[in-house]
């Protein structure tokens, strides 16, 4: 039984904002199925009592002082923009609503 179906991949592609053709979806589903089969074995040793590691080194409390430093100029900030209007980034119409 496949660990991951074409519909699953379609859902993930939506979450990840990547357009995929039907062919791409099929191909991706079968490849991921194989890969997931191989990586699932982490569950074998991941016991309840093992704490997860999210940072390789045990550092804590790294802060910076609340001091203002020069920002990029408007030109620098917009230098890579695919489109701009005056001083702002121009983007296609946003249909959704902010969180």
């Amino acid at each position, binding site marked *: 039984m496949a660990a991951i179906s074409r519909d699953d*991949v379609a859902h993930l592609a939506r979450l990840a904002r990547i357009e995929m053709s039907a062919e791409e979806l099929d191909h991706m589903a079968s490849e991921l199925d194989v890969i997931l089969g191989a990586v699932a074995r982490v569950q074998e040793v991941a016991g309840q009592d093992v*704490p997860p590691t999210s940072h*390789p*080194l045990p550092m804590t409390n790294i802060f910076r002082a609340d001091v203002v430093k020069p920002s990029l100029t408007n030109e620098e900030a917009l230098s890579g923009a695919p489109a701009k209007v005056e001083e702002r980034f121009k983007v296609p119409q946003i249909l959704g609503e902010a969180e």
Partner: protein
Amino acid sequence: MSSIRLSAAEMGAALAKGEITSVELTNQHFDRIAEVDTAVHAFLHLDKEGALAQAKSVDAKRAAGEKLGPIAGVPLALKDVLTQKGIPTTCGSKMLEGWRPPYDSGVVTKLKDAGVVILGKTNMDEFAMGSSTENSAYGPTHNPWDLTRIPGGSGGGSSASLAAFEAPLAIGTDTGGSIRQPAAVTGTVGVKPTYGGVSRYGLVAFSSSLDQAGPCARTVLDTALLHEAIAGHDPRDSTSINSPVPQVVAAAKRLDVKGMKIGVVKEISGEGFQAGVRTRFEESLQLLVEAGAEIVEVSCPNFDYALAAYYLIAPSEASSNLARFDSMRYGIRVGDDGNRGAEEVMNLTRQVGFGREVKRRIILGTYALSSGYYDAYYGSAQKVRTLIKRDFEAAFTKADVLVSPTAPTTAFKIGEKSDDPLAMYLNDIATIPVNMAGIGGMSLPCGLAPEDGLPVGFQIMSPVMQDDLMYRVGGTLEAALNSKWGHTLISQIPDLQVR
């Protein structure tokens, strides 16, 4: 007489003595690149203007009597994943075609301060995801030992540029082996410092808790010189270690391993690896014994799960790190014909801008983090990471450093594994555990495999913040090997077709 075959240390000495200028040296390297890079394709972008300006500036300082560092004026190739202000940075991806960052990475700032001459940006697997540089959107790089073969990945461009004598120094980045495995298959040296040892500011993130920039060169000493130039605390990187730079140059020159315990890790000691790789590895162990070290066998049973855990953690972090590539602020934009909304344009851009492997990992990572699957996949992988750290800690009570062959095979043919993701992932089986634990890892050449005459790499792993240990062992082994052969390994590379 071209100086391109000298080591960086030798070039630095020649520059200091006034035997050559940096401008001359830089031009020699650009000439070499012009001769061979059509065949090798190590570089994506050359910055002649900037490099010569830097070279000129260094020459002027030297002429004025300023005391400069050991690699001031020496050329270097920079992996295209690090930002350099005003210079195209593509990360091997179509997504960033033409993008010129408005800021320098921490590594580049340190290189400029050290007077190093950055020749250009090198080719890589797209967004550092790969083990062969075949995933570059700009075409593969070819291994200078055999142009039909891969140079390793993701940093194949950097290692190939060294092997082709296009540069004596290079910077790579290593997330699961992307410095070490290319070093192994090109007969060069590459080091992944302890995580946090080199700034990640300006290093385009693939997997934030695993990524590390590191030095690459043709000799252990050169690598050490570059390591000291780029290492150190950066307050702009919260994961940067705030400690003195390890004394790796002194360690590299020490040439002494008497009394050291060298741990061979059972799980990655060569079982299932190419025969010639094992042979050369074991011969090197013998040389270390002859040099006065003791070989001990250690077992790290959780290493068997390292690959699986890595291919959950790295794609998960990547799926989040690469979300910013949405065509709104920089990079390419596809499908914006005035009739489409932002979301649709994002979707189309990411379909076109990302290659197959990147998309695969983004989807896999999205899955591993998603509601209902987090515990089983990402959560479990992070636990495996703890187990791997514990295995290393236990092993390091028995040995000063651990060793293994760097990669299971020598350089394979271009196209041989590109249709089989899992087979490709297996190239990193010996290198991945190092990144998972955040410790230091080095690969240096230990011979040519008898069956195919291709380079084999020897991996040395040192405990957290003790990078000097791997340079001590590496330097000693390199000297012993060179002595045994009567020459360096890289000097044996067949001549490239000169145009």
